[in-house]
């Protein structure tokens, strides 16, 4: 039996173009809508500044008693604070909202609609909800990193470029982590508290990973690559990590992406097999 080619109406454009269009439309639509709520911008700015002030106060407090912390000097630690703030903004703006929506949809059986669309379901569920205002944190965090690095002798331009790559890797790692956890909702129904658990863990990323005891370091690097996501960019910028470390992180991220994809597909398969 022959298959019926699609009508000329749908899928009028090649896969690649469509995929890009989907990303652009999803991002554009959510962003434009949220931009209407200007008051949220001021709330977020206020929140970001308070969070930043708290972080600085903690760092200042620590350095009242010691000149360096595990080899990190005050301005170097501020780089960690900046990266942590910026990545936190990316998480709360781009990653977490869609993942929470996905969790709800899996629980309520509404994922059906994402699975009956002629586009990659992972792409669709990962970009469905974007909140723009937490991006203020990205700007604030980036500002902190810039200010701090002008006061660090070891900061170089190649180091900064490596740090940029590491930040991107970090964002991808955290996305994967979130998707893996969320995919767990296919089997475990009650996953609502995962966001709080994650945010709690993310707080640990405020400190350079080297400060933790060995077993925690391992946990935060391999199992929950949170600290790795924050520390590596800071290490790259302050000349502690070089090309080799960032290369290693690239491989690790690639493996994580592949695993996440596999795990997601497994989840979808089990969803299709079990839902009534």
């Amino acid at each position, binding site marked *: *039996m*022959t*298959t*019926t*080619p*699609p*009508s000329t*109406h*749908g*899928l*009028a*454009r090649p*896969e690649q*173009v*469509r995929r890009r*269009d*989907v990303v*652009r*439309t*999803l991002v554009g*639509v*959510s962003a434009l*809508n949220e931009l209407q709520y200007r008051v949220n911008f001021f709330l977020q700015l206020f929140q970001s500044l308070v969070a930043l002030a708290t972080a600085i106060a903690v760092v200042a407090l620590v350095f009242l008693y010691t000149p360096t912390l595990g080899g990190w000097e005050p301005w170097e630690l501020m780089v960690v604070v900046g990266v942590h703030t910026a990545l936190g903004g990316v998480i709360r703006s781009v990653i977490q909202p869609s993942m929470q929506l996905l969790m709800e949809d899996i629980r*309520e*059986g*509404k994922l*059906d*609609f994402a*699975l*009956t*669309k*002629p*586009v990659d379901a992972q792409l*669709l569920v990962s970009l*469905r909800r974007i909140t723009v205002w937490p991006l203020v944190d990205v700007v604030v965090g980036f500002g902190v990193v810039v200010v701090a690095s002008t006061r660090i002798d070891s900061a170089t331009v190649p180091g900064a470029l490596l740090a940029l790559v590491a930040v991107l890797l970090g964002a991808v790692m955290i996305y994967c982590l979130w998707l893996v956890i969320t995919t767990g909702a296919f089997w475990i129904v009650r996953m609502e508290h995962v966001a709080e658990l994650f945010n709690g863990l993310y707080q640990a990323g405020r400190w350079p990973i080297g400060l933790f005891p060995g077993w925690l370091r391992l946990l935060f690097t391999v199992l929950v690559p949170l600290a790795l996501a924050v520390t590596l960019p800071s290490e790259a910028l302050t000349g502690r990590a070089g090309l080799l470390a960032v290369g290693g992180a690239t491989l690790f991220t690639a493996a994580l992406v592949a695993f996440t994809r596999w795990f997601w597909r497994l989840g979808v*398969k089990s969803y*299709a*097999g*079990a*839902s*009534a």
Partner: protein
Amino acid sequence: MDVTGLGKTYKVPVREAGLKAALKSLVRREHREVHAVSDLSFSIERGEMVGFLGPNGAGKTTTLKMLSGLLHPSSGQARVLGYEPYRRDRNFLAQITLVMGNRNQLQWDLPVVDSFEMNRAIFGIARPDFEATRDELIDLLEIGHLVTKPVRNLSLGERMKAEICGSLLHRPQVLFLDEPTIGLDVTMQKRIRTFLAEYNARYGATVMLTSHYMADVTALCKRVIVIHHGKLLYDGPLSELAERFETSKTIGVTLAEPDRDLSGYGEVVAVDGARVTLRVSRAEASTVAARLLADLQPTDLTIEDPPIDDVIERVFATPDEPGSAQPTGKQRG
């Protein structure tokens, strides 16, 4: 659309009530197989509108999910537009739509038009085509004033119309509609019905419709497929459903002189002044009618099948024994 021996079996954990059983199930979980759908076969021609009937839990939604690619059949085979649905081929998905009356797929916080825009991107519809179809559908459904509102501000009926509009922007060839009018008032049901008939006529789309409102089915579908306990019970014209399952007919007589006892002719169902409604067995209907005409010289007499709702009720009351199911073999296409 061809379905042969389609079946879906779920494996569900079972345990008895009580703490002891709960603890036991933690260690060793027992499973029971539930045959949601078994050995279902039918085929539907392109452009046909078919009513898919069955009581709650009959396996309607499971079947629709298998046909739209959401569920992997446990046995048998389904082919829709030449594709095997569970493979979820993009070319297949671009030509179908699944609408579920109790779930919404538009973005809750966004204006309706933005959700439409997302569908445009997802289905890769060329801009001019998209705009033409969108405006046409908005016009047909009369939702022009609603589309700029966020979905959460719409009433149930308005939302359903917006849902249907959004699901048809890519002009699907096959529509799976699961209770599209559930919870809507009569006017709204009617409007959606008219729209579906119009869409079917305009684009020659195949429609498979489940509904608890028989009015939807009688208005739209000449043919019905009835399933019960996951098995095919009837497949054929809606008009013959009564013949197969209904053992009685309804005779309405308007008497020249009221207040006469007609219980001797059949079961008196209703008396409204001079108008009496009787239920008699199918086989005797014409004899009883002749006797009534001869004995009473009524001013009016009608013989009808009982209301379709009653017929359906009777169909579903059919006991679940293999021998009692009467698949007709009346499969077309």
